[in-house]
């Protein structure tokens, strides 16, 4: 039982309309493990996450969370099965306040939740993200990028996930806030959450992730321990040139 990974994907193909984006992606994320998905823009990182959630047309030999097959499930069932999705553009409900955004994501703890995972009450979340506590009545549209990112993560946590899919969490976020976020993500990891993180910020990956997958043009090219990635020849190809990494 304890050997079942949280997320296990085998031979995942995905399409965006008529265009094929993913070609046989296979990866797994263990319990309490943080895994980086690294690649340039358009490589297929976001599509991998959307494919897990059932938001794009997909086909896979295996797509399991905690041993349960997700392939035939509608998106909302996948979310209820403990997959928390934090999309790239955050997709905060801008007309709703912070408290209302959290209310949309709220779910009771699923019956089979491992007792080691914390119960994410609003109080627990406000301790994790102190900024949010002070702006509960602010409309989502009136928040900064970093604040929206915090809210997007918090909104997913109130759904009591076991696995987080974080798509570019540091994109467009001020460096000070990125530090706060790394701190918060460490707390989540210690609490036993598994994470798959698509990220361009190498500091964040180094600090948080155990392993990494490199994706190029919809195919996985490399997979190994995070520490080994920078010695790889392909690292120069996938590392962004803008100096963030």
């Amino acid at each position, binding site marked *: 039982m304890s050997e079942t990974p949280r997320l296990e994907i085998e031979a995942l193909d995905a399409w965006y309309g008529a265009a094929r984006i993913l070609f046989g992606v296979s990866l797994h994320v263990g319990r309490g493990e943080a895994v980086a998905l690294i690649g340039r823009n358009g490589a297929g990182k976001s599509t991998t996450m959307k494919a897990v959630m059932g*938001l794009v047309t997909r086909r896979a030999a295996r797509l399991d969370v905690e041993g349960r097959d997700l392939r035939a499930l509608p998106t909302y069932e996948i979310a209820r099965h403990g997959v928390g999705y934090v999309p790239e553009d955050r997709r905060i409900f801008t007309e*709703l306040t912070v408290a209302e955004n959290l209310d949309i994501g709220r779910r009771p703890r699923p019956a089979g939740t491992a007792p080691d995972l914390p119960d994410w009450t609003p109080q627990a979340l406000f301790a994790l993200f102190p900024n949010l506590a002070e702006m509960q009545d602010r409309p989502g549209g009136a928040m900064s990028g970093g604040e929206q990112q915090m809210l997007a993560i918090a909104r997913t946590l109130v759904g009591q996930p076991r696995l987080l899919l974080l798509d570019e969490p540091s994109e467009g976020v001020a460096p000070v806030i990125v530090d706060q976020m790394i701190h918060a993500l460490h707390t989540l990891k210690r609490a036993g959450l598994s994470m798959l993180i698509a990220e361009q910020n190498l500091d964040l990956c180094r600090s948080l992730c155990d392993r990494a997958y490199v994706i190029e043009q919809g195919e996985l090219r490399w997979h190994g321990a995070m520490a080994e990635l920078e010695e790889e020849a392909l690292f120069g190809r996938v590392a962004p040139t803008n100096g963030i990494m």
Partner: protein
Amino acid sequence: MALDALVFQAVNGLASASGLFLVAAGLSIIFGVTRIVNMAHGSFYMFGLYIAVTVADRLPSPFDFWGGVLVAVALTALIGALVELVLLRRIYRAPELYQLLATFALMLVMNDAALWLWGPEDQLGPRAAGLTGTVELLGRRLPDYDIFLALAGPAVLLGLNRLLTRSRFGRLIRAATQDREMVAALGVNEAVLFTAVFALGAGIAGLGGALQMPREPASLTLDLAVLGDAFVVVVIGGMGSIRGAYVAAVIVAQVKALCIALGTVELGGLAFNMSKLTLVAEFLVMALVLVVRPHGLFGRPAPATRIHASAVEAPLVPLGPGGRGAALAAIALFAAMPLIGDSFAYAPVLAQDVLIAVLFAASLHFIMGPGGMASFGHAAYFGLGAYGAAYAFLTLGVSTPAALVLGPAIAGLGAVVFGWFSVRLEGVYFAMLTLAFAQIVWSIVFQWEEVTGGSNGLFGVWPEGVLESPTGFYLASFALVLAGVLVLRRLAFSPFGHALRAARDSALRAQASGIDIARVRWLAFIIAGTLCGLAGTLFAFAKGSISPEAISVGRSIDALVMVLLGGVQSLLGPLFGASAFTLLQDTVMRETAYWRALLGALMIAVVLLFPGGIAGGLSDIAARLRRAAGRP
């Protein structure tokens, strides 16, 4: 004009505004969450009124009215939920046009269901217990019930507002209105939410209908009349905005009330009866608002749709040798029709109907297929052509050939004006504005008796001179229709046609490559309107008369069904569709009182089962045959 008349009409206007608001609010909520424009929304209003009257009839006096209203709301909400489960659920991912057609088909089916359940007679309900008196205001007597209605609108607005802000259901509606995919990704079962929202919207429409019980009888024409009004209100207020719907309902109702209150005014020595404007006033307000704010007073540009499953359209291909042979055979058949007229007297008459329908459908297809603009008011140009030609022929005394030119010219002129407004809008807004313009034309024709003959229409429009013999006129119309179809076909493959298709497939990219899309669409709209006017002109001369029925919304829908039945994605589609539809109408639909339901069922079947229409089906078969023969 006296102040008391103005105040009296203003209160009356607020009472009417409440009715408009209730229909529009439901339409708006449903659109916000499901992105479906529910063409059947007026049907829920109509059902609400019929159910209320029926129930009230069976209840004892003090409970009759209020009991009827309660049952009506509950039942219409239930019917709404059923409709969502059975029909709408299957078309959320279909292209917008199919959604519009499917819900319109639903309206046809519901109308015949009402005919079957309640019969063709209007039914009047009781008055509201406790609200039968009047209050005196500035020397005039105002019915209590009008004051109650005037307050009912704001009350529902406040109630909805509370629901949307204070309940989890309301918060989910607001969140889903913005990004329903994200709502699902957070673990909310969209399907249940959609059903609930549809039931809510239908129930509010049912309430709107039921509350009209003391003011108007339940009748089978309500669905379409109310739908038109609700569209206008929602478009003025902005799709998806409840507050906008109320403001717009008040504006429309007050403008109408003002027109009535003003009565006959003298303007530069000319007496003009303002109350005649009421039928058109709301459309004028709408046109004005849309010019200034294309998304309505409180509306916003629709959020970019994510992962849309709408099919990518294959490029148009010219006919192969086999297709060309078949086309020539069909042309020869139509040309030879007068010869077989001796043995089958009815054949040339039917062929004439088919020809007119073909041009009618082909002209709509030109803007709908290559142009991507589904007009819900194409009959306006048919009617303008027919009436223009008939008027010129009968009153001005021009020759038949001159009338054949004047008719299309007048329709083209109408398209120049209406098209200029319409082509600036996308998708459903375009559909609604074209429908609204068609309603304007219809109401002008209906009311302007001196010129149009009112509800009777114009008679004695028989061709003269060389075209007097049936064969002569048949051959002339055959030549004209053939020329029209060939022109449209030629245009579709010309650089102009390419620009039109580019504007359809990606407006942004087309603009970036230097295409003035508004201009291209406008031109296409004018061409389509002119050729449709030619079809109308031929119709007037073929039948010898023309009546407002030829401009009715039903006629516009006939054209849409022809195009859909034939297949939108092929240039041959409208030709097949128009022929099949005319034959079908001539045979099956004449035999039953429930032809609307039959037509609706046909439309739903096409949308759900054969989205490619006849042309799509034929090309599938051809492709299969080629594969079987071992060719690519």
